[in-house]
């Protein structure tokens, strides 16, 4: 962490304080980290409403492929997006570990179907880099970028773009 902070300060100096930042340590965000196949993804915690177990998803006829269906979230119907489909990963039946991360932005909300929710960590914002060029653009637009945290690559999901896709 100390190393990160030092780096952050350096970065700031090099940008000649474009923004009057109060303290570099405040420039971190909490992320919920989850797994899809063997890849790690993160979603900003402020956009996460809650994480629920996968319980009997009702599939919708003639709906786009990335829509896994709808679930009952305490009396409210929540649409479920299959993130595997969004990122072009092979489809698999949800396991015991699978979860639905209910995310919202503005008035829209959806549930992200993921293989496993791992943890919640703090990531310094300046460690998030633009999505790699090797990621195909139709997938990359659903990412805000990725970051390398202790040798682990975490792709940051762009919730707004995913919500737009559905709208």
């Amino acid at each position: 962490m100390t190393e990160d902070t030092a780096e952050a300060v350096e970065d700031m100096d090099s940008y000649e304080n474009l923004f009057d930042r109060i303290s570099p340590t405040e420039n971190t965000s909490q992320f919920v980290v989850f797994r899809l196949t063997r890849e790690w993804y993160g979603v900003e915690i402020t956009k996460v409403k809650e994480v629920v177990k996968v319980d009997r998803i009702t599939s919708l006829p003639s709906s786009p492929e990335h829509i896994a269906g709808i679930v009952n979230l305490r009396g409210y119907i929540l649409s479920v997006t299959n993130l595997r489909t969004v990122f072009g990963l092979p489809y698999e039946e949800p396991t015991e570990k699978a979860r639905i991360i209910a995310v919202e932005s503005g008035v829209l909300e959806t549930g992200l179907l993921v293989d496993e929710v791992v943890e919640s960590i703090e990531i310094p914002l300046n460690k998030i880099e633009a999505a790699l060029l090797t990621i195909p653009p139709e997938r990359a637009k659903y990412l805000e970028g990725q970051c390398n945290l202790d040798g682990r690559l975490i792709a940051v999901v762009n919730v707004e773009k995913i919500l737009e896709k559905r709208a």
Partner: protein
Amino acid sequence: MTDEKLTLDDIAALLLQIEPTNLAELANIRRGLKAIAESSSISVQRSIAEAITRIDQMEGGKDPDPAGLLCRIGAFIEEAMNATEESALEAPPFSPTEQDSPVRSNPEAGCSNALPLEADSALLSEFITENRDLIAGAETALLKLEADPENAEALHTVFRAFHTIKGTSVFLGLDHISTLAHRAESFLSRIRDKEIRCVGGYADLAFRSVDMLKDLTQTVHDALSGKPIIVPGGFDDLMVLLTEPEAAGISEDVCERGDGAAEVPSLPDDLLATQANPRREGRKTAVTDQTDQPAGGVPEGTKTPSPTEIGQTLQKQPRTAGSETAAESSVRVRTDRLDRLIEMVGELVIGHSMVVQDNTVNSGNYPDLQQKVSHTGKIVRQMQDLCMAIRMVPLKATIHKIARLVRDLARRQKIMINFIAVGEDTEIDRNMVDLINDPLVHLVRNAVDHGIESPEDREKKGKPRAGTLLLKAYHSGGNVVVEVSDDGKGLDRNKIIQKAIAKGLIQPGQNMSDSEIINFIFEPGFSTADKVTDLSGRGVGLDVVRKAVETLRGRVDVSSEVGQGCTFSVRLPLTMAITDGMLVKVGNQRYILPTVNIDMSFRPDPEALSTVAGRAETVIFKGKLMPIFRLHRLFDIKEAVEDPTSGLLIIIGEGNQRCALLVDELVGQQQVVAKSLGDGIGNVQGISGGAILGDGRVGLILDPQGIAALARQTLEPRTAGKATC
């Protein structure tokens, strides 16, 4: 209550209870008034002095009508209270005390400054909602008053509305509204003092004030969202009209100013006045004792809330900004919270049913637990019923709006209409109320414009000069029915046929039943009105009504007799929220099919099945051939029953849209709460919504029309439309 320190409020209250002959009490009031006058501003003193003069008259006992006098005293005291209020609130930015200056003819009256800076938006929006209620109430009361000018209670309602609005608007610094309310109040007080009667031009003026108040409230509403305040046109004119009688001085001797009517430029027709007259005569005899009551106060212990409320609220209102109306028995609740509550209760019901079905509870080993669970079950069910009841509101407000509309339309069309509303208390889901307003207004306009004839024509036909428009609302078999009937021309069969031929809908000489012909009036662009008015006849007509009603899952029927009138009946479900449905199983999926859409269901004999062109399956049922649509194929569901003879066919749709839907089986009947599918899913063809089933799963509600359309889309390329029979 000590004698030395009586406030105006106290006196107003005393006055309501006092008997005109109780001289001791009168003397007490007189003393109290004097004491107040000593410490008040000039304008207050003036009113108090007037009141005291009247008391002296009463004490003399010479006056033939002590009750009327008492009422006038009440009026002066109220005036004094107003004056006190105004001087107390004199500060910013306008005070209605300057009633002697004519109208504040604002050079830029068209566009005034934005909202007062100190105005708090929460307060303002509360003010707006409250205003709207008050205005609606005032409007209704005015209609009553116009029909029965002696109705003191109606007058009070109008008065109170303006008064409350005045107080609040002064407090909020909304000077246009307060000016209007003030002047309207002064005008109304003349009616109250029986100096003028609320008929003809006066009624128009009162209605115009109400309309202006509506517009102004709307501008405040707009201003909240950042738009500039634009004072509606005609504001200044109206102010002059309202003030003009005032110029003679209200505190003068009342009887001398009976000829003020000429000053009010109004539509020159006295149709409504004449219309109102016979009715008033009728009422007069019926309610003689009521007309004798003083308008300003109610004698001897009559515990009607209205006048008492005046006394209590007069002073309080401006200070509390109308946030609490005394004796208010209802609480305003934000609709989203209400919806959420209802949703949660629905969830509670499901959660509870899960507990009931739990093995531990059902094992029979714990009878105590079972008893407790069934006890909570009762409570939960009651809660659910209550929640449903909360959603329901009476149609009163809608009907009152229509009553006003009819009045205005009748005046404009120069016809006479008796508007009769039956079943104002019929309740309907609050979400439906707004939605049915437009179709009803449309039907009413139609009736006035095309239905009811001019008085002359009616006389020639031997009908009473005044037409009758009946609006009747009632519950019938889980539905709300609203009927709009008139005794006018009725639908002219020949005219409709001509029009239909002209529009190419039918061939000349084609044989058609009456109901088929009448149904043409629901075709788009179909109007039999010869002339286009601003009311109707533009061809945007009944098709809109039908469409609107159908989106509410309702139905419009029409019946008509040429020359005798026409009745439209709109049949709507009680609530959009609850759908009666059949749960059907297809493969591993379950769907809800709304019961209204189901004609019947049966398991076909193998002989009844056949195919056309090798693909399109059909079934013969009761001699009729209809296509079979397989739900599992349309929705791509695996492991479903493929053989119709071991599944179930459900007949849905009407007319040539009839088709048989193949499902595995019927699971049962269920009432469900229809919800929209989650965000971003948009329209799924064949599905109208989702609902939470008893087991907590989401079930999809089928949309028969959508399914039929979907089936045609998938079939047509292959079978060249042979699927439709």
